[in-house]
């Protein structure tokens, strides 16, 4: 039998289109994980995902307490949707999430971006979404390399052993 030849991942491109705390963090954990493995990494933030790289917002992301069926109370009981709509609950839940994330030595969003940048990963903002939200380059984190179109992002997916991940 012929020996199986493996082709390890060389380049990964990620697209983050959602702006809740866990959506952005999931993207950043995967992106940083790729950088740590020595994989060339590029991340594209679009639509509400832009919150994750917008200076004013990136460290204030929330977890949705409404319309999130996986949400649980401490102890594991179901979390009723009406409870999530009470003012302050979402902020409380988000604060709790942040505490638990910090306990695992997962950095805050701004520090995460620094880590990815320091390791050679590249962060991009979507031109269409930036225009839509009327943002400017200076509103975005310093680590954002450029504001580009999705076409330009796809162009970066050249070469073999490259994957695009939408989170």
């Amino acid at each position, binding site marked *: 039998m012929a020996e199986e030849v493996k082709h390890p991942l060389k380049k990964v491109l990620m697209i983050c289109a959602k702006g809740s705390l866990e959506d952005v963090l999931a993207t950043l*954990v995967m992106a940083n*994980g790729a950088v*740590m493995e*020595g994989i060339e990494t590029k991340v594209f933030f679009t639509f509400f995902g832009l919150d994750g790289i917008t200076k004013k917002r990136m460290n204030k992301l929330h977890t949705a307490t409404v319309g999130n069926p996986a949400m649980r109370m401490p102890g594991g009981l179901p979390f009723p949707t009406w409870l999530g709509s009470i003012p302050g609950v979402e902020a409380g839940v988000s604060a709790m999430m942040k505490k638990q994330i910090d306990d695992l*030595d*997962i950095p805050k969003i701004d520090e995460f971006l620094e*880590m990815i940048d*320091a390791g050679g990963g590249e962060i991009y903002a979507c031109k269409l979404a930036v225009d839509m939200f009327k943002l400017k380059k200076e509103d975005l984190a310093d680590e954002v390399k450029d504001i580009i179109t999705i076409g330009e992002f796809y162009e970066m997916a050249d070469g073999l052993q490259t994957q695009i991940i939408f989170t």
Partner: protein
Amino acid sequence: MAQKEYAGKMIELDDNGYFKSPDVWSREIAAEMAKENGEELTEKHFEVLEFIRNKVKEGQSLTIRSIEKSGITDIKGFYKLFPGAPLKKATLYAGVSKPSSCV
């Protein structure tokens, strides 16, 4: 069971190629491992390796962030010291097991 000779010592390695026991480690062994990859270890490298060994000995989890917090080097510096996959490489040279952390 995989074995490999470094600095005149037979070292037992696990399935990932990491040391089975951190006790057999020495600076000479680390230097020879690095040489295999065409790298020269400096005093700064050894500071990081010693930090990793202590951290593992204390049973603490190892993250790229903890390296930065150690004050030995920043993250950029860490990637420069151990190019490619720094945490994997540094733990390999430090003679400890493969890191199980995602960050």
